[in-house]
């Protein structure tokens, strides 16, 4: 797979992982036939930080993660690693990842990925807007030397 394709895949896998599970299920209620290569499995990922934000890594603590791998009838293999312990979420994300490698990708992009991306963007903008409303505008009342 080329780097550009990898970047696309990184993008949709990340979008699927971060999507609210209930929303993904609503957009993609029915799953096509698939075989489980790795049944949804709950585990942990150690999250790392950096000393002084830019320096040497250290272990911050773990987070729960669910992973899953599937193969569609036509052979495409899909993987998912998603935050949390929702097995249905991981399974659905893996199936969509597999479908995105088939001719159905354009339709899926329009019906599932684009709405998820738009909603994520909106949620982020709303939060950023609330933060921006708490930004301090300083104004000088009296300067010491003027008094």
């Amino acid at each position, binding site marked *: 797979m080329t780097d550009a394709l990898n970047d696309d895949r990184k993008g949709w896998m990340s979008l699927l992982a971060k999507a609210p599970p209930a929303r993904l299920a609503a957009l993609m209620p029915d799953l096509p036939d698939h075989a489980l290569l790795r049944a949804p499995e709950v585990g942990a990922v150690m999250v790392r930080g*950096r000393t002084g934000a830019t320096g*040497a*890594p250290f272990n911050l603590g773990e987070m729960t993660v669910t992973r899953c791998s599937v193969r569609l009838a036509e052979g495409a293999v899909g993987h998912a690693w998603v935050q949390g312990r929702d097995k249905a979420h991981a399974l659905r994300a893996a199936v969509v990842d597999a479908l995105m490698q088939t001719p159905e990708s354009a339709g899926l992009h329009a019906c599932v990925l684009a709405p998820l991306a738009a909603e994520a963007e909106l949620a982020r903008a709303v939060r*950023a807007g609330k933060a921006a409303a708490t930004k301090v505008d300083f104004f000088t009342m009296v300067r010491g030397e003027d008094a």
Partner: protein
Amino acid sequence: MYVAVKGGERAIDNAHAWLAEERRGDPSVPELSVAQIREQMALAVNRVMAEGSLYDPDLAALAIKQARGDLIEAVFLIRAYRTTLPRFAASSAVETAAMAVDRRISATFKDLPGGQVLGPTFDYTHRLLDFALLAEGLPAPAPGTPAKPQPVPHVTGFLNRDGLIEDAPHSEAVPPDLTREPMELPADRALRLQAITRGDEGFILSLAYSTQRGYGRTHAFVGELRIGQVAVEVDIPELGFAVEIGEVELTECETVNQFKGSRTEPPQFTRGYGLVFGQSERKAIAMSLVDRALRWKELGEDFTGAPAQDEEFVLMHADNIQATGFLEHIKLPHYVDFQAELELVRKLRAEALALQEAAE
């Protein structure tokens, strides 16, 4: 001498049944749901995630419910659960410079790129009980202004450009993990940071406060404090590339510390670092002060005997699960140990009394 005894099974079962009933409280009052705790007791949830060292708001909320609000008991439940999870991987180090900030303030610069963003803070509230919260109801929606989410640069970056502050050079060294190997002293900074970020908030707070009062003073300014969401990226082995698999809320504090220079270092500002799961501002500030105090040796400073400078003292007592385990075990049956003590005291007393009588 070891004596095996049996018994108490019925008493224990009944005690647990009563515990469940007490946990529920008055049944005429509606039961708390885990989602309610997660959404409305978010800072307690954050503390349980930070000290439990596992980011999962639903599980932390469940633990708080099960523990009847005893947060150390809830941390214990989370720690026990996390040992059952297989470790899939370690993430790439999170990019806090790319954080979607809810809050970002600096005590050292008034005007700085990205501005002073207060976020949902208790600061500037009057700490008067709000009796309006006794009534149920939705608050008015918080105002927003159109804003483009964009990365906010770190304050220490500006200072670093002029060489006025020590550098934090990039490295990809694999950090030690105290959940995998027993902690060994002396610990490097990475191991210390792991121990402090999961340490008890009260303990870290008190140590940090002690440095401010003069026990290992570090002259700290909060260069920057930021809270927000950060993406977590993991290398997926089956694919050979990294994917963002989720987001965590983090609080980061960087202190800028006065430093006159030492035998080994030129005069420049030095740094303390705090990074904690969730919105955990007090803990992050305290962590950065304690981190800086523990760095006396590498900066060529004097050891003044202050507790916050003493790595063994700080690291071996920061974990509230270890502490509560050892503390509370003394309430469990020690009948045989105590019997031996009793025998000894009786014998010593008899000897002492016999000597007294002989003297008279």
